[in-house]
């Protein structure tokens, strides 16, 4: 069992990296709110198509909803890495001023892109509009100038992190992290390749959507998770690092060619059906392996956590990743089923649970770890002064809300697959029949109900983040390293 003691809070000023991380975390939370706001408007437009018609059309609200999500998660990851880099490298951040300038450039660019999204989206699509208004690729609509800016900002970020580790000490976590940052900048470039051949264009576009998001982000999350487990549970660095290597190997073994399940219907050669199907069938197996390790650790060790909200969100991450990416992903990944479900609300259902479970949860966990330090290394284990009702309720509402939306969208997607694809043979009239069917509309109504629940959860979480630990007089629970 872990041993623990209760201390007096020992406040110490934030380091340069941690101050920069707080900038990123605050911007991430603002963008999270924007994501939810535009998601609610998009959901409402399914039920009331006249809402904001010709003022804020569905194509714009949906685009802002998804882009805000991608950017807030990216801000959260960058913030998380700035938070842990000095602790991991055991030295001060290299180029703190450059990192701060980088933050403001990136944030200003994001604000300009959002303003352009909202006010300049009507007119002919031409080469100039690709560079200045909208690149036209779903999910990564940012104009070309912003795309190049994102790559430059990630390279500056890479320099800050790699140089800090070179100045300080390297570790297993830092080695994987720095290599992953190269891929984070590099693979994003595939989304800027323009060709009039739609099959070739989609081929490279999926590199960003699948490899950038599902591979480089997953590895980044693995690094953050490894550091987070050391912080919240006092887990052994050696064990955590070994498992990080195993995770990366398992993921690359099945994940990279799992890309093939996106190549089924875009005009690529038929062998992608076999490659995509085979590796997609293997993709959930590493997630199942995670269950064995979790049981092993919880059976061998009695856990005490120094930060209950963060640990709860890390657990939510494990479950969300398993169900969102594993179960919901495999359900419609084989080509025999994907023929009917591709691009329906089924995909939206999988996307909601997978993005929330795999990525949003870990960013929220990191913010709680940061807040503990910001409030002066205060007690954030069990028995908080208000019994921690705000973080517990926000955790429940957010997870319940997202799961509810996922199930509602699954029902809508099933109805769409049935009516539009199977009965009507993917015709234009079939699309509208599916959109107007009773099951689809009922599911969309329920999606709004659970969307409201998610919104309440987020507002409660913001309130908790602003107040948690402010009146706490006890110091952080000290954790001894976990013995065997």
């Amino acid at each position, binding site marked *: 069992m872990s041993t623990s003691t209760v201390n007096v809070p020992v406040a110490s000023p934030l380091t340069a990296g941690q101050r920069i991380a707080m900038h990123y975390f605050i911007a991430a939370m603002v963008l999270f709110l924007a994501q939810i706001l535009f998601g609610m408007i998009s959901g409402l437009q399914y039920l009331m198509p006249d809402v904001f018609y010709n003022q804020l059309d569905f194509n714009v609200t949906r685009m802002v909803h998804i882009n805000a999500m991608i950017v807030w998660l990216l801000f959260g990851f960058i913030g998380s890495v700035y938070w842990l880099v000095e602790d991991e490298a055991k030295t001060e951040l290299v180029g703190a001023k450059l990192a701060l300038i980088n933050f403001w450039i990136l944030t200003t660019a994001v604000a300009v892109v959002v303003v352009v999204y909202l006010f300049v989206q009507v007119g002919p699509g031409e080469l100039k509009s690709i560079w200045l208004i909208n690149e036209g690729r779903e999910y990564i609509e940012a104009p070309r100038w912003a795309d190049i800016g994102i790559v430059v900002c990630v390279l500056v970020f890479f320099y800050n992190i790699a140089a800090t580790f070179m100045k300080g000490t390297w570790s297993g976590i830092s080695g994987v992290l720095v290599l992953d940052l190269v891929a984070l900048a590099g693979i994003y470039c595939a989304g800027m390749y323009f060709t009039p051949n739609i099959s070739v264009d989609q081929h490279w576009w999926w590199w960003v959507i699948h490899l950038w998001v599902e591979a480089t982000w997953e590895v980044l999350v693995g690094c953050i998770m490894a550091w987070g487990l050391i912080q919240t549970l006092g887990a*052994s660095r*050696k*064990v955590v690092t*070994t*498992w990080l290597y*195993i995770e990366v190997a398992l993921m690359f073994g099945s994940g990279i060619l799992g890309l093939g399940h996106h190549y089924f219907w875009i005009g690529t050669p*038929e062998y992608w*059906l*076999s490659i995509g*199907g*085979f590796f997609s*069938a*293997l993709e*959930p*197996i*590493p*997630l*199942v*392996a995670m*269950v*064995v*390790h979790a*049981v*092993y*650790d919880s*059976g*061998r060790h009695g856990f005490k956590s120094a930060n209950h909200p963060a640990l709860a969100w890390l657990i939510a991450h494990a479950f969300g990743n*398993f169900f969102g990416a*594993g*179960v*919901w992903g*495999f*359900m*419609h*990944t*084989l*080509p*025999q*089923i994907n*023929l*009917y*479900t591709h691009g329906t609300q089924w995909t939206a259902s999988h996307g909601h649970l997978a993005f929330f479970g795999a990525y949003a949860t870990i960013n929220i966990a990191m913010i709680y770890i940061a807040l503990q330090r910001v409030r002066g290394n205060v007690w954030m284990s069990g028995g908080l002064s208000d019994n921690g009702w705000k973080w517990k309720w926000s955790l429940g509402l957010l997870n319940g809300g997202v799961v509810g939306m996922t199930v509602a969208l699954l029902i809508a997607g*099933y109805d769409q*697959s*049935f009516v539009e694809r*199977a*009965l009507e043979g993917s015709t234009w009239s079939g699309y509208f029949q599916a959109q107007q069917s009773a099951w689809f509309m009922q599911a969309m109504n329920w999606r709004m109900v659970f969307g409201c629940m998610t919104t309440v959860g987020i507002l409660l979480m913001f309130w908790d983040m602003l107040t948690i630990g402010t009146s706490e007089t006890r110091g952080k629970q000290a954790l001894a390293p976990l*013995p*065997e």
Partner: protein
Amino acid sequence: MGDPIGLQDLFFGTMAGAGVVLSGALYALFFALTRLHGSRAMNIASLAAYLLLIISVFVMANALALSGFWILVSAVMLIGYFLLPRAIWHLCVGTHAAEAAATHSRATQ
């Protein structure tokens, strides 16, 4: 790829797909608990979960009218879900053994 599946099979195909991952995870869970506690009940539960996994794969293969290469994919899946929990357990014991040895040597010094 084979012929498109029938309408009635879409539901069974997708639910069996979910069943594959869920029963695979249940098998892994009960397998690990069996190794941890040496419990006979857990061992029976793990076998039951693996049987459920076989049934899920069988239902999926039937619903999706799988043949040839796709039967091979199903078989690899079954073998993968069977072997990987064992391999991961082995790795768990191995990675923690070094930690245990270090703790023991510190305690005896």
